[in-house]
């Protein structure tokens, strides 16, 4: 159902009323923005000195190289691991053997129900500190377990979304179970799942910010170092961080939409709302904007 079904084509009076609403809204929004800017200016928050570090080459470099690049590395590394984890456990959940199915379901449901931050702190303080693998990998492993569990559901749904006849035909020509899965079902499923995987990158990217808690590198770490060095610039730093996150995420969302159109067509994006245990899902901390959701 599209938005337009909800209301009639507006008549002259309605158009006038809507115009009034529009004008009022624009006035209110402009007034709000102006009010905020004036307030910030009177507080001296817009002064050049408070923003200077963000146009100073060495700090820009720190933000982009030690910050953004590390954040992207952590996000993509964990997504790649998560895809592997997701395939193993997603296929495991489709296994014909009940114990395998149950074990995989249990693992997947556990990691989906536990806050990723709790997981991260646990991993860091158990195996990450001291001689351990450090905060960077603690973030990567926590995000792998969490996103991998979400992707396991995506993979399961993806395999189930391949038309039934495909598998049946493969069995009919004498393929074995593994062959059917590896040669027929998974390749097609991956195509359907690609946009969901990219969307999961957005979730992972946002969740790398949680590395802040365990002194992992990344954007929030650099942000913290910068507002510590320039006291009273939390606002400015947070604005810059938000802009960076939003830009990268919009690029990723755009990519997901493009992939969706190019490879999947007009199919609905995969919905993995249902879980085996409760019939409901525990969605990502971020909950990526699903591809294809735009303005009505």
């Amino acid at each position, binding site marked *: 159902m599209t938005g337009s079904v909800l209301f009639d084509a507006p008549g002259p009076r309605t158009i006038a009323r809507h115009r009034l609403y529009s004008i009022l809204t624009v006035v209110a929004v402009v007034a709000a923005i102006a009010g905020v800017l004036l307030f910030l200016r009177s507080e001296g928050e817009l002064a050049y000195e408070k923003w200077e570090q963000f146009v100073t080459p060495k700090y820009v470099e720190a933000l982009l190289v030690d910050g953004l690049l590390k954040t992207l590395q952590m996000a993509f590394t964990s997504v790649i691991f998560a895809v592997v984890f997701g395939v193993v456990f997603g296929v495991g959940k489709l296994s014909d053997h009940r114990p395998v199915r149950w074990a995989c379901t249990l693992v997947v449901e556990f990691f989906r129900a536990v806050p990723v931050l709790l997981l991260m702190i646990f991993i860091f303080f158990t195996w990450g500190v001291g001689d351990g693998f450090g905060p960077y990998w603690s973030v990567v492993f926590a995000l792998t377990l969490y996103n991998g569990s979400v992707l396991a559901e995506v993979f399961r749904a993806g395999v189930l979304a391949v038309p039934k006849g495909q598998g049946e035909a493969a069995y009919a020509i004498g393929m074995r179970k593994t062959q059917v899965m590896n040669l027929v079902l998974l390749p097609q499923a991956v195509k359907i799942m690609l946009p969901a995987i990219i969307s999961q990158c957005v979730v992972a990217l946002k969740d790398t910010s949680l590395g802040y808690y365990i002194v992992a590198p990344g954007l929030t770490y650099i942000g913290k170092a910068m507002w510590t060095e320039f006291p009273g610039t939390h606002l400015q730093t947070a604005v810059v961080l938000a802009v960076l996150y939003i830009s990268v995420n919009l690029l990723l969302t755009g990519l997901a939409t493009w992939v969706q159109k190019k490879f999947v067509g007009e199919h609905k994006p995969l919905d993995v709302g249902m879980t085996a245990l409760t019939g409901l899902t525990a969605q990502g901390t971020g909950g990526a904007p699903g591809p294809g959701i735009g*303005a009505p």
Partner: protein
Amino acid sequence: MDDVFSNFDLVLKAFWMTVQLAVLSGVAAMVLGTLLAAMRVGPVAVLRTVASTYVTVVRNTPLLVMCVFVFFAAPNLGLLVGTPFLVKGTIAVGLYTAPFVAEAIRSGVNAVPLGQAEAARAIGMTFAQNMRHVVLPQAFRASVPPLASTLIAMTKNTSVVAVFGIMEATARMRYFVNRNADDTILIFVVFAIGYILLVELISLGAVGLERRWKAAR
């Protein structure tokens, strides 16, 4: 290991804080999210733009950065200084969750059969009447599963306020981990079970709600 169990009241108190945060943020996010959803499907283009801008911006910003605004940037400007930490947590988590609620409700609106809205229009209902009496009651029903997902994610997300001064479950786990470095696994399991119970509670509530509303149809 005895530390967690002999101080179990601290664990319970921490989860009570998590529950309070989740309930308050949930209410805030539902109100704001419903408003955003109505704006997004409504006839006024400007309102649609405002709502979708908010949704786009907030959905792509990490909750941690939202918390920096609410807990660090605002007090430095003299805002929210006397505000209780629980309220600040509610503001951060509520503002962050609202767009996800809006999207869940919008998907519910999309699930309402076309004929319903058309029939409402046919008998002369305005957009507001149509939404209030025909579309939204049904949309909420269809939104129950995605809304439950959103609320579950939100409950888990309340953990992010742990280093912003609120002693909720995750901060309390840090406390125990620090005191008992050899027992992290047990401590983690205790706290994980707490979260899983909360998550299952929301799931069961949603399943029950769905069943009841289905019967009422």
